[in-house]
C-alpha cells in the first residue's frame, strides 16, 4: 500500500497508468488534460518508457493502435474535440480486437466549445465512438482516488476482453487535487498476447492484426462473437455506487462531477426529511441498469443530473422502461450546476411526489 499524497486528478491518472504497467503514451496537448501528457513526458523517460508528442490526435490514436498491436499496454489522453479526431482510430482498434486506454477529459462543446468541464460526450463514448457495431468499456470516476483505481481496472479488463477502454473524466475532476493512495505495484500479471504483431522470431505463423474482413458472412460472425462477449460483460461488469438508496423515493442518477454536486444536494434534502438517494454509475458501458431496476419498486421518480442537454438520460429511460417518470436537470457549455440548483429541483419533485 502506497502512502497518501495530495495529487491533481490528471496527474494521479498518469501515475496510476505507469504503476499498471503502461510505459507507452502518445498524445497531443489540449486543454484541460495537458497535465497528463506533461506528467508522462517527465516520468516515462526516467523509467525506460516512451512518451511521444504526436502531431495530432489522429496520429496519436494510430500510434496507440500500432503499439497495442505489438502487444504492449498503451494509452492516450485528450479532451472532447480531440476525441472526435480519434473516432476513426477507436473504431479500428475495436475492430482489430485491441486493448487501449483512452482518457477523455470532457470540456464544453460542440465545436471548439469552451475549456470548462462538461459531460456532453456521453453519447460519443457509449454510442458513437466510431463507425460500426462495437462498444468500448467506459468508466466514470468521481474522485481522484477513483481515477487511480479505475485506470488499473481499465487496463486489466481491456486486456482480458481485448477491447478499448475509456475513462470519461471532465475538466473539474482533472484539475482538482485530493488525497490519494497510489498502489506501489500493479495488481495483475501481464497477460500473454500470443496474437500480437511483434515479430514471429521464426517460431510461429505470422500474426495479422486487422479489421478488414471482406466476406460479409465472416465479418458478421466476427461481430456476433464480439457481441456475445459484450453480453457477458453486461452481465458481470456493471458497477455503480448507491448513496442513501435504502428508502429513496426520489432517485438521482448522476456520474462524475454532477454526482459530487448531487451528493451535497442530497445531504441537504435529507436533513429536511426528503427521501432522496443517488445511483452513481461507475461503468457507463456496460450501463448499470441492474441497479436502476432494483430501485424501481421503491422509487416514485428518477432525476437525471448531467452537465449536458441530457445524454445519459436515454439509458436511464431505457432501464426504467416506462415504469416511473424520469426527470432531468442539466447545465451545459461548461457550466457546473450548484448543489442549490439541484436541491431546488429535488424539492420541486418532492412536492410532486407528495401529491
Amino acid at each position: 500500500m502506497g502512502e497518501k499524497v495530495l495529487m491533481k486528478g490528471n496527474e494521479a491518472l498518469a501515475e496510476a497508468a505507469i504503476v499498471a504497467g503502461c510505459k507507452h503514451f502518445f498524445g497531443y496537448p489540449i486543454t484541460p488534460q495537458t497535465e497528463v501528457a506533461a506528467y508522462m513526458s517527465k516520468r516515462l523517460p526516467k523509467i525506460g518508457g516512451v512518451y511521444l508528442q504526436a502531431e495530432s490526435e489522429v496520429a496519436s490514436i494510430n500510434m496507440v493502435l500500432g503499439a497495442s498491436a505489438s502487444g504492449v499496454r498503451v494509452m492516450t489522453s485528450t479532451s472532447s474535440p480531440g476525441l472526435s479526431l480519434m473516432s476513426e482510430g477507436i473504431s479500428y482498434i475495436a475492430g482489430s480486437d485491441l486493448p487501449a486506454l483512452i482518457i477523455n477529459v470532457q470540456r464544453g462543446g460542440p465545436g471548439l466549445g469552451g475549456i470548462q468541464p462538461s459531460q456532453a460526450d456521453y453519447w460519443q463514448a457509449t454510442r458513437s465512438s466510431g463507425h460500426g457495431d462495437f462498444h468500448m468499456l467506459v468508466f466514470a470516476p468521481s474522485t481522484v482516488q477513483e481515477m487511480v483505481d479505475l485506470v488499473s481496472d481499465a487496463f486489466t479488463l481491456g486486456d482480458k476482453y481485448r477491447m478499448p477502454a475509456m475513462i470519461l473524466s471532465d475538466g473539474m475532476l482533472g484539475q482538482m487535487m485530493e488525497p490519494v493512495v497510489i498502489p506501489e505495484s500493479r495488481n495483475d500479471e501481464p497477460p500473454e498476447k500470443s496474437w500480437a504483431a511483434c515479430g514471429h522470431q521464426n517460431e510461429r505463423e505470422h500474426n495479422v492484426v486487422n479489421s478488414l474482413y471482406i466476406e460479409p458472412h465472416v465479418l458478421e460472425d466476427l461481430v456476433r462473437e464480439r457481441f456475445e462477449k459484450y453480453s457477458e460483460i453486461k452481465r458481470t461488469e456493471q458497477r455503480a455506487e448507491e448513496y442513501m438508496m435504502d428508502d429513496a423515493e426520489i432517485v438521482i442518477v448522476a456520474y462524475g462531477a454532477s454526482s459530487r454536486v448531487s451528493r451535497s444536494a442530497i445531504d441537504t434534502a435529507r436533513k429536511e426529511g426528503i427521501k432522496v438517494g443517488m445511483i452513481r454509475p461507475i461503468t457507463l458501458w456496460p450501463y448499470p441498469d441492474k441497479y436502476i431496476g432494483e430501485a424501481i419498486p421503491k422509487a416514485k421518480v428518477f432525476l437525471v443530473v448531467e452537465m449536458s442537454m441530457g445524454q445519459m438520460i436515454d439509458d436511464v429511460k431505457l432501464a426504467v422502461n416506462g415504469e416511473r417518470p424520469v426527470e432531468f436537470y442539466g447545465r451545459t457549455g461548461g457550466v457546473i450546476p450548484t448543489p442549490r440548483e439541484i436541491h431546488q429541483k429535488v424539492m420541486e419533485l418532492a412536492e410532486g411526489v407528495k401529491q
Partner: protein
Amino acid sequence: MTVTFTKPHALTDIPFHYCPGCTHGIVHRLVAEVIDELGIEGKTVGVASVGCSVFAYNYFNCDMVQAPHGRAPAVATGVKRARPEDVVFTYQGDGDLAAIGMGETVHAAARGENITVIFINNAIYGMTGGQMAPTTLPGQITQTTPYGRDVKLAGYPIRVCELLSSIDGVASAQRVTVDTVKNVNVAKKAIKKAFQYQLEGLGYNIVEVVSTCPTNWGLTPKDAVKWLQDNMLPYYPLGTYRDVKEGIL
C-alpha cells in the same frame, strides 16, 4: 539443376489479386527478397495501408498490422517505439501517403522515425477506380479529371522525394522504378539500403517506386510501361534525394 530464381520465403503462397501487369507484384517480391537476404523476417512487422495493396497482410510472411487510410506511418511509429528491436516497414500508395496521410508522412520523417516506407507512385487511385491522385500529372485524364488535370482547378502534383529531402530526420529518400530488368535491380538495391539504414538506426527511409496502373490508365501492361517512361519519369526523375551516409543532403 540448381534453382536460381524462386519465390522468396517472406512471401506467402497466396496468389496476388493485382491486375495483370501491375507493378505492385514486382515490388512486393523485392521487399520480400530483401527481407530474406537480410535474414530479418522473424523480427519484421509490416504495416499495410489502404489502396490496392490493402491485402498486403496476406502476402507477406512477417507479422502484419492493418492501418487506417493514411495512418500507416503513425501506426508504424507506435510499433517501432514499443518494439525498437523490430524492423518496421510501411507499404503505401499515392493517396495513402501523399493525400490523406501527408501529415503522418511528413511528421514521421521529421521525427526521423527509424522505419522504412515503400511508396508506390502510379499517379492515380487504383482501388477506388481511377480517380486523381496527388501525383496525377498535369493534363492526365482520370475519372475525376475527365478533361485532363487542370492545374488551375486541381493544383499541381507533389514530388514526395523532393519534399521530404529537406527534412533532417530523413536518412534516405530514393526514387526508383521497375520498368526494365536493370531498373528492377536498381530498385532492389534501393530497398535493401532503406532496410539496412533502419538496421543501422539512421532515421526515416523512403523508397518511391514510380509504378504503372495499366487498368486505370486504360493501357496494356506493355503500353503502360511506355507511358511511364515517356510521361512519369520526366516529371519524377529517378535518383537519390537524400542519403546521410553518402552525404547527399
